[in-house]
């Protein structure tokens, strides 16, 4: 039996987060700086991943993988047959659900504002003058 998974940020969440700093027009995707990452196998559910694919910004995911040093692990585009393409869904599952970012930061691409990640938890709180 595997160890229970840790509650830490995965790339599925990175894929949804945007910078909401005052005045920023294009705060997506956030630039990941990862000082400590771990990989942890989790249950693969093809139906779920296939459903999520329609809500994932694929280019941001491939970029995120590159930013954490996992290059060439994903196709540049979502294949047409993605719903039935099990190899692809497994790759997507791995990228979205199995990479834990423990320490690092997320940086707004426009303003440069850094949102720290500590203990696997991104801190998206803004200061008063940023809202």
């Amino acid at each position, binding site marked *: 039996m595997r160890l*229970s*998974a*840790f*509650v*830490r*940020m*995965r790339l*599925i*969440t990175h*894929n*949804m*987060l*945007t*910078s*909401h700093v*005052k005045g*920023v027009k294009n705060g*997506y995707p956030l630039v990941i700086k990862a000082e400590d990452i771990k990989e942890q196998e*989790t*249950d693969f*559910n093809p*139906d*779920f991943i296939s459903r*999520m694919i329609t*809500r994932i*910004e694929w280019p941001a995911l491939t970029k995120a993988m590159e930013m954490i040093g996992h290059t060439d692990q994903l196709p540049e585009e979502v294949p047409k047959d993605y719903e039935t393409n099990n190899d692809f869904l497994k790759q997507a599952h791995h990228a979205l*659900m199995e990479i834990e970012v423990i320490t690092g930061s997320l940086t707004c691409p426009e303003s440069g504002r850094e949102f720290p990640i500590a*203990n*696997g*938890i*991104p*801190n*998206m*709180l*803004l200061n008063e003058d940023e*809202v």
Partner: protein
Amino acid sequence: MKLRQLEIALEDAKPFQEPKIQLEQYVTTPHLAACLLHTAETQFGDICGKNVCDLGCGCGILSIGSSLLGANHCLGIDIDEDALEIFQSNCEAYELNNVVECIQADIARFSPSRNMILAKRFDTVLMNPPFGTKSNKGIDMEFLHAASILASHAVYSLHKSSTRAHIVKKANDFGMQAQVVAEMRYNLESSYKFHKKKSKDIEVDFIRFTITTG
């Protein structure tokens, strides 16, 4: 999983160590949480296999419960890092099979024009929002608004029955239709464990909101 089993399982979740009154940090009781989640799953099929967001996740009872009922992915959001620490250790203690994550963020900062999370990425949003006190009046509406942005399908929430008409109207403004699923009693004082006063139940509506506009 049966309702009673779920309730018993949820009794192991640790509550707030030092609840912050201004953040309205009282837990959803295992009984209430189990009723809410069990109904969401058995009557509406909104938990198993879904992507769930837990707004104001606190110690995590709603995330844990939805994970036990088969949610595939669950994201908890809370403003308070002490709460998130308990959230983490609670979720990890349950050895859940799915992926659970959390972020620290202020739900009052959500707006459709300046999002911190892309819209409609979650199937289901769960919450037991702060009711709003003098110092944070309207926070329940901020939660409801954020939920309407995040959910693509359904939102489950608890609100004071006395505010029902207002909630239903606001939900409409946010593109959601409200359905009161049950009227419940909530014993706040017993949730704040240090409270000495005689306990008094308040009436809350368990509401399911469905998204009517994309």
